[in-house]
Every structure is written in C-alpha cells, then in structure tokens.
C-alpha cells in the first residue's frame, strides 16, 4: 500500500513543509512540499530516514544507575520513569519552592504545552534557546518597532539589493528564502556580503567586504553619516514614521567613512558608493537584521543600527523590503489558541532565575528568557537556589558558552531530566532520559505561521514509532498528571489539540489533507505605507529614540567602542554554521556525519605561517575556559585577527559513536558573557591561542 502524507520536517528549526511517500508502512521518499518548495529538500531533510533507522538514538526511557556522565543506565517502563521524575520534582518543590525548577527548550510547536506545564507547577522559569541565538535582535526590534524579529519577515523575491552582515544565507539553508533570493538575483538583484571570512554566500555576492571583526557597527554609523549628509533617505517615509532623526543626525555627524575605514578596513569611497547605490533602489532594499545575532556584548546597538538603516530607506513594510507578519486576526479570523492562555492557569509570582523583567535584564523578552544565565544562576544561587533542570530538545551543556562551567553548574543540581530524540551532552549527564518519537513518527500541535499570508501547517504522523518512544504532547501530559496538575492538559489525542487550537478560527481538519497547509489570506496583506502601518511602540512610530531603552536608563545611541585586537599569536574566535548540520543535534546522523564528520579551524595564511601551521595539520586551540584539537584550514580569505570554526562538534558522549570526540567544541572555548541590554551572549568575544598540536 502506498500513500502520500503532507507533514513538516524537523531536522532543523526552519521546519520546511514536506511530502512523505509511505509504502507498506515504511518511508520510501521525502520531498519538499511541491506546493511551496518545488519538491526541494536539503541534505538534513533527506537524512530524516537515516535518523528514523538510527539505532544510536534514544529508544526507551532510562534511569541513571552509575555516576552522572558514567553512561550506566537502567531501561525502565514509561510509568516508572514518569513516576520517578514526578517524585523527584515534587520533593524539590516542597523543599525549595517551584521556582527551583527550570525548563529549557528549543522553541517548537509544543512550546505552549511546556509553558502550560511550568505555570501549572508554579514556576516562572521557562526559557527557550532564543536568547542564545538572537536575544539582542529580538530586543532591538522591540525598541524600534514594538515587534520582535520573529514578527517580521523579508520579501526576498522583490528585493533589489540585500546587504548581509555575516548572514551566511546560502549555508544556513532556509529553503524558501534561498529560492526567492536566487530568483531575485536572476532578475538583477544584488548581494552585498560583509564578513570576516569568505563563505559560500561571499562566493555568490556581487560585493564582498572582509571586515575587521567586531567593527560592523562603525560601518553602519558611517553609512548613516553618508545617507543623512547626502539626503539619500526616503524623506516622506522617514518624516511620517521615524521618531528621533535629528538625534541620530547629530550622533553620527562625526562618524565619517574615513573614520570607519580606519576601524573596519573598508575604503571610505566604497562605503559612500554603497550608500548611494542602495538609495537608488530604495525602498526595495534590505539590510538583513540577521538570524543568529549573538557576537558581542554591544550587540543590541549593532542590530538597532541595521534596523534603522532599513527605516531610513523606507523599507519596513515595503514590497521587496521587511514586512511585518500578519496574524490570523489581521486576516479576519479569530486568534490561534494556545493552552497557556487557559483560564485558571496559575501565574507564578517569583522573579525569573535569569533576571529578565527584573533589575538584571529589564527589557529582554520574558517569552524566551536568557538561557545562558542558567549556569551562572545555579552556581551563584542568585536570585535563589535552582535544584532541577528539565531540557526538551535542547542541549544546554553544549549550547551555552563555557562547557566546563556548565558541567560544574549541573553538578550542583539535585535532578536533571532530558526529553529528546537523540543523546546529547545534557542527556548523557541526566538522571532520567525520556525518548521522544521523531517527527516522522508523531503528529504535533499545529504550526501557525504569521506572515503576509498567515498560514497554518500540520505535522502528521507518517509511520508508527519504531522504538518505545512517545510524542511530547503525550509525555508532558503524563508527567503533569503524575505531578497532580493534569487538569491543565484537557486532551486525549492530537485531534483534541488541533480542535482546541482552531476553536476560534474554524477551519475543518480535512482541509489540511489537500496541500498540508491552509492559508488564511488569498493575497499578501501589506499595510498602507502612508497611514496604515501599525507599529507597536508607545508613539506608534519607529523609535530611533527609544522609550523602552530610555525608561530603563539605557541610551538610545551608544558611543562606539573599538573592539580590542587580540595579542600576537592569539585570535578572536568566530563561529557559525554550514548547510549540513543543525546546531549540536545532527553530528551523529549517519548520512550527515559522512558528509561533514568534523569541523576545521579557518586561519589566515600569513598568521598560520608565523605559527608554523600548514593546511590540514592538527592544531591545539585554547582559551581561559578550555581547549580543543582541530584540523587547520589555511586560507587568505579570513581576517588575520579571526579564526573560525563550525559550531556543534567536539561531542563527548561515547554512545554517539560516529561523532564522539570528532572536531573541537566552540562552547568549551567560549566565555559566558552577555549583552546585558539585549540578551544575546557574546559568542565572538573570546580570544584563543593556536599552536601546532
């Protein structure tokens, strides 16, 4: 028997829509949903079948029997694993209060259930990985527009010129944006790419600037200087929508292209040329605000400068620019329902563990928290002792900077619970591991994708679970029942959850069978640029002078500080992704591991020669935090102050035999520092020493 099922991929967080062909109960073929992606799928997407068949993934519930991290487990029933976990959590709550339990996850379709669980047990401490990736991008957007970065999108297809700051778009692999941008380039659109190394995106760009690491803000201030001095901005748009232009004008007055050239290494004339060129194509130009935006501790001011440049070009809510995502309500429907909005669900009063919303991080987004504060809060016991950590499809140990510190922090916990599909460093260190069915084996909560055309997507189970695993929505309900708060999970099946989510939208579930998704608008909803843009700031405008910042004692414009250069023989560690792997989670996948089994260290050829390092040779990289062994990739096309490595390698879990001990881990080397205004960690704020191994 053969059937075709529309679903949603989950090899990475992009979650592309897919079509799965199942023959006699096994998966024969996966392709990108032809209605959206012309069948295209990435390497990770096709490797989903390898994940399904992988015997090294988590296959049954386990309770630790040896010492933490020793790898001795007892296979147990679901009932025993859940009862044991609930008992431990209840014991901790009765002794230290519910706020001593922290829950972290990578944002996903069931996040509303995790948040429901935490509220139900009385803890304010739910966080997502978001801040680690882009907390400051989120905050920057809110200070300017009232929206988060997740509430806007880019109209790549109609863009005429896009400026990418280290946004390695062709290796980060969001399929729809890539296809749209490729089409735009065929129609004549241009790409300006700025980075400290020549990535694949650089190799597709029309202009490439190899910038001195950490100086992008100087470049942007100089661009603003030129744009304002030569009146290159969209005057009608700026007069209507921008608050604080004069303040910006006086702030950037002294920051000329000549000044920026000394900081960035980019010739002043070329900076002027770019500003003029972009102005000709405005408003169909985009300064990409970034996806991962977590490089330096002044990140928020850099991200704000990017968004302000878009505002100056009039490109926010413009065709070929940045578009504010519209919701079901904007399309004339009721709201998309979440269990976390249930009546009667407790609202915990205690302050958050990470200081978000308090004195420490007053303006960061409490919907996500600031996850990298977790090890610091555990170790300092401030604001209070934390005793239990639950992680769901998130590996804090290898994701939060300073792996060794993370380990010391987790040592202090009384209980560690991990729910995931794969082993990872945190799971290996846990007391209980609950295995989730992979995305091909389960259905999930519906996905509401806000956008110019708000659309709802559905993940559907394609095959039965291969091992003794369960979908998360069932796991969290069972755990809640054992904790005595099952009443907040009033469903018995995925259909019940779908019906609840759609209760105010009113689309029949059969509609999803046609294409795998249902759009709530026939045509893109774009607001009128003269009077219709609904900015959510107090002024209703784009606030260059930000009420959110100023009310909390932060300046709207921060003086530029030149990033220190590393001492001789040392380098600024920079990190990133490639097209093959997802964060820390796919390195053990048989097919993906075969393509990229380990990471390499990009190092400038002249610097490598000074250190006696040749291409392909193993080197030792060390920092104040730790060290690693990695192969050198010697090239002229990285800035001499920087070295670069892919994130996600250097796994230390023996059960993941394919990736065990392969490559080096960036998190072992990085120090855990945060932009205390915006919330991102400074992932590029660590200097490392490199020597032949």
């Amino acid at each position, binding site marked *: 028997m053969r059937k075709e099922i529309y679903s949603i991929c989950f090899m990475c967080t992009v979650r592309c829509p897919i079509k799965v062909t199942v023959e006699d109960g096994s998966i024969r*073929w*996966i*392709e*990108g949903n032809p209605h959206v992606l012309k*069948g*295209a*799928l*990435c*390497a990770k997407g*096709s*490797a989903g*079948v*390898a994940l399904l068949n992988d015997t090294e993934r988590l296959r049954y519930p386990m309770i630790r029997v040896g010492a933490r991290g020793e790898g001795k487990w007892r296979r147990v029933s679901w009932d025993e694993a859940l009862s044991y976990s609930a008992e431990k959590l209840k014991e901790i709550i009765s002794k230290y209060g519910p706020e001593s339990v922290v829950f972290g996850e990578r944002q996903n379709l069931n996040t509303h259930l995790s948040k429901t669980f935490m509220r139900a047990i009385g803890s304010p401490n739910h966080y997502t990985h978001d801040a680690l990736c882009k907390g400051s991008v989120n905050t920057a957007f809110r200070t300017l527009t009232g929206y988060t970065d997740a509430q806007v999108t880019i109209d790549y297809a109609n863009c005429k010129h896009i400026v990418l700051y280290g946004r390695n778009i*062709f*290796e980060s*692999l969001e*399929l729809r944006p*890539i*296809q749209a941008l*490729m089409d735009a*380039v*065929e*129609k*004549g659109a*241009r790409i300006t790419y700025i980075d400290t190394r*020549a*990535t*694949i995106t*650089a*190799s*597709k*760009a*029309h*202009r*490439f600037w*190899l910038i*001195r690491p950490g100086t992008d803000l100087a470049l942007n201030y100089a661009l603003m200087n030129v744009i304002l001095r030569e009146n290159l901005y969209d005057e009608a748009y700026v007069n209507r929508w921008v608050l604080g232009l004069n303040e910006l004008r006086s702030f950037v007055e002294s920051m000329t292209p000549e000044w920026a050239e000394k900081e960035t*290494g980019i*010739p002043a004339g*070329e900076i002027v040329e770019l500003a003029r*060129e972009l102005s000709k194509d405005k408003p169909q130009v985009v300064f990409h605000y970034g996806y991962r935006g977590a490089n330096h501790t002044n990140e928020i001011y850099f991200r704000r400068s990017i968004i302000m440049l878009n505002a100056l070009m009039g490109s926010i809510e413009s065709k070929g620019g940045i578009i504010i995502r519209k919701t079901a309500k904007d399309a004339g429907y009721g709201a998309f329902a979440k269990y976390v909005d249930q009546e009667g669900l407790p609202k915990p009063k205690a302050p958050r563990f990470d200081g978000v919303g308090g004195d420490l991080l007053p303006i960061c987004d409490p919907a996500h928290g600031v996850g990298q504060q977790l090890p610091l809060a555990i170790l300092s016991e401030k604001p209070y002792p934390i005793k239990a950590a639950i992680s769901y499809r998130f590996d804090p140990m290898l994701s939060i900077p300073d792996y060794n510190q993370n380990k010391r922090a987790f040592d202090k916990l009384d209980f560690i619970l991990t729910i995931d599909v794969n082993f990872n460093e945190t799971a290996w260190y846990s007391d209980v591991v609950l295995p989730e069915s992979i995305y091909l084996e389960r259905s999930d909560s519906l996905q509401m994708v806000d956008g110019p055309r708000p659309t709802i997507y559905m993940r559907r189970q394609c095959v039965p679970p291969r091992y003794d695993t369960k979908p998360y929505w069932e796991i969290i309900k069972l755990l809640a029942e054992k904790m005595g708060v099952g009443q907040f999970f009033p469903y018995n099946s995925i259909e019940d959850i779908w019906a609840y989510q759609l209760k105010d939208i009113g689309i029949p579930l059969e509609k999803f069978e046609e294409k795998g998704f249902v759009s709530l608008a026939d045509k893109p909803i774009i607001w009128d640029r003269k009077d219709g843009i609904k900015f959510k700031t107090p002024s209703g405008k784009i606030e260059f002078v930000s009420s959110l910042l100023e009310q909390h004692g932060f300046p709207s414009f921060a003086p530029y500080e*030149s990033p*220190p*250069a*590393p*001492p001789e023989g040392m380098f600024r560690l920079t990190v990133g992704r490639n*097209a*093959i792997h997802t964060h820390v989670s796919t390195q053990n996948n*048989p*097919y*993906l591991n*075969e*393509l990229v089994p380990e990471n390499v260290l990009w190092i400038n050829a*002249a610097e490598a020669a000074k250190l006696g390092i040749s291409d392909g040779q193993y080197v030792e990289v060390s920092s104040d935090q730790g060290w690693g062994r990695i192969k050198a990739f010697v*090239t*002229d*096309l990285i*800035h*001499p*102050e920087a070295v670069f490595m892919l994130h996600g390698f250097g796994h230390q879990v023996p059960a993941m035999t394919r990736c065990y001990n392969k490559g080096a881990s960036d998190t072992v080397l990085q120090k855990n520092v945060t932009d205390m205004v915006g919330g991102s960690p400074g992932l590029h704020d660590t200097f490392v020493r490199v020597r032949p191994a």
Partner: protein
Amino acid sequence: MSEYYLFHDSSKCIGCLSCEVHCKEHKRLPIGPRLCRVMTVGPKIVGGLPRMDFIFMPCFHCERPWCVAACPTGAMQKRAEDGIVFVDQELCVGCKACMRACPWGAPQWNPETGKAIKCDYCMDRIDQGLEPACVAKCVTKCLHFGRPESVTDMRRERHAKALAAVGWEVTLTQPIGSWTKARKPPARKQSE
C-alpha cells in the same frame, strides 16, 4: 553518452551537498558509497571577488564506457534503449574491475553487499516518468535532467534573461567593484 544529459548549473549551485543525500536515501546506501558528489574548490579570488567552484560528479554514462569493457561477468551494462550504464547486482562478483577502469571514480564500493554500485540516473524513477533523486529535490534547482538539446536551450534562455535584467554589458556574476583591487591585505590592529 546516454540519450540523457544531467546539466549542473554551477552558478546557481550553493554546494549544500543535498543531492548526495537525496541519492543515498533513495538508494538506501550504507556509509561509504557516494554515487554522486559535489566537489568544492576554493574559496579563491576570481576577478577581484571570492569564488567557489562546485563540480558535480555523477556517472557520465559514457558512449563507450571503460567500466562495461572491463567487467568480466557482464554485470556492468549499457541499457539498450537509452544508453544508461548500470550494474546488475545479481551478476556482480565484487571484483572491482570497473572501479579500476573508470577514469572519474564513478563506480563505488558497497561494503554491505560486497559489490560495485553506481549512478544509474535512478532508472526506476525515470521509467516512471520522474527525475533522478538528485535533480528532483535539488535546493536551488541547479541540476537539470533531460535531453541534451533541451538543456542547452534552457541555458541560452537563462543567459538572455540575465542580460535583459542587468543590461548588455554585465553578466549574472559580474562583480560590483573589486575586493582586492586598490586594497592592502587586511591587517591586524596593533594590540594595546
């Protein structure tokens, strides 16, 4: 050469290696054999800008295939109706003569079966009127499968469109300015 042509438009290729996994997944291959490969060369400076070359290497399905001539058992064959070169797994004895014979490394070793295996343009899919796996799921649609004449037409059309979009003087990948010209190599700032 077979009747088909698998054209790789390297200007649209982003070296994401997806084609390799689409192939392996469709053929249910173990670790080891890679029936098509994208070889990445670079980055290096070309015309003042960093460029990478992506060379797509499936089997070329030669007109007079070395591998077929070398095969002692008749396992390696050329399909009469369309010239696709493939291995009959029943007849292969794993002698590796094809691997030695092919100048481009197309025949691969399957450690699970102890036999040779190679790209057959996904004959099973072609016979159903579908494209090979690598083409069907290519991320940027830089892989095209068809008759040689239709592929060259497509290329001409694309070039014409590109000229119309950006003007006669420039081509699709023409750089704006030049990164290396008039530029000192980037220098480290003096550490304080």
